[in-house]
Every structure is written in structure tokens, then in C-alpha cells.
């Protein structure tokens, strides 16, 4: 997940810290989004039980695997697109 590489020759101390911090932030946000979506997709909201059923647990496992695959596919997609068009996905400001 190296979205924030060291492009320049000699990054400053602040830049090095920010780069590592940003990579970790990307991972943390991805985690948060996955939890939110897969909970929505798999967990029954009536809460008759305090434990995950077998079906819910299996659904969560598969959902997380599919989420990673989709995440990777969309990331590749955007990278291709931006190489072809030189951007175009943004505020255009």
C-alpha cells in the first residue's frame, strides 16, 4: 500500500514522518470502512443474540476478502485511468 512513496532525493524529517503516518492512516481508514460495510452486509440488527451466528461469521470472512479484492481492483482502475488521461478525477479547481 505505498501510496506515498519517497519521490524526491532527500526528504526532510517532517516529510519522512508524514509519509509513514499517511500510509498508516490509509490502512486505518480502509479498516474502518470495511468494518462498517461488512457489518451492514452480514450482521442481523435485531440483536436477539449477543454472539455472532455461524452464518454471520462466515459472511464476515467472505465479505472482508471481497472487500480487499474490490479495493485493489478499484485502486488499479484509477491508476490506469490517471495514466491515460492525466488526472480528471478531482475537483477540477
Amino acid at each position, binding site marked *: 500500500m505505498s501510496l*506515498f512513496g519517497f519521490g524526491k532525493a532527500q526528504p526532510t524529517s517532517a516529510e519522512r514522518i508524514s509519509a509513514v503516518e*499517511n500510509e498508516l*492512516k*490509509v490502512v486505518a*481508514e*480502509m479498516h474502518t*470502512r470495511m468494518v*462498517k*460495510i461488512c457489518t*451492514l*452486509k*452480514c450482521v442481523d440488527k435485531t440483536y436477539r443474540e449477543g454472539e455472532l451466528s455461524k452464518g454471520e461469521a*462466515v*459472511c464476515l*470472512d*467472505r*465479505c472482508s*476478502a*471481497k*472487500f480487499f*479484492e*474490490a*479495493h485493489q*481492483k*478499484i*485502486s488499479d*482502475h*484509477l491508476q490506469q*485511468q490517471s495514466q491515460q488521461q492525466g488526472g*480528471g*478525477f*478531482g*475537483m*477540477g*479547481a
Partner: protein
Amino acid sequence: MDPTTGLTQAESRELENRLNKRQVKEFMNLFGNLVDNCFTSCVDDFTSKALSGRETGCISRCVLKSMATQTRLSERFAELNASMSAELQNKGR
């Protein structure tokens, strides 16, 4: 001095720095929302842990359509914002 913003050169540079950070953050949000939206809309079958052909196709089309939506709305936004700013300027701000 920039006549539009009233900032000195040093201030403009500092502002640019902060806007770059904001842009990285906004791109990450955009990407995250894209993943959320396309995964939520396209993936609903958890009998397997790999994306099906149908799901992969749906995700690709979702990414393309979302980028087209983003581009179109950004154009409209820029136009509407410009005409609103012109109106405010005429009123003496």
C-alpha cells in the same frame, strides 16, 4: 502581493503547502467513498470469498460512471460558483 487574496509571497507559499495536504486528504476521501459506494451497490452475494464476474463487471462500470458523475458535477460547480461570485462582487460584496 497577490491582488486577489491579499497575501504576500511567503504567505502564498505556506497556503499552497496546506492546500496540497488538503488535496491529498480529499483524494483519499474520494477514493474511499468510491470503494464504499461501488462495493455496497455491486456486492451482495456472500456464498463465495472471491468476486464473481458479474460483481467485477458491476464495479468497473460503477467506477467509470462515478468518475463521469464527478467530472460533470465539478464542471457545473465551477460554473455556478463563478456566476455566484460575480453576483456577490456586483452587490459590492
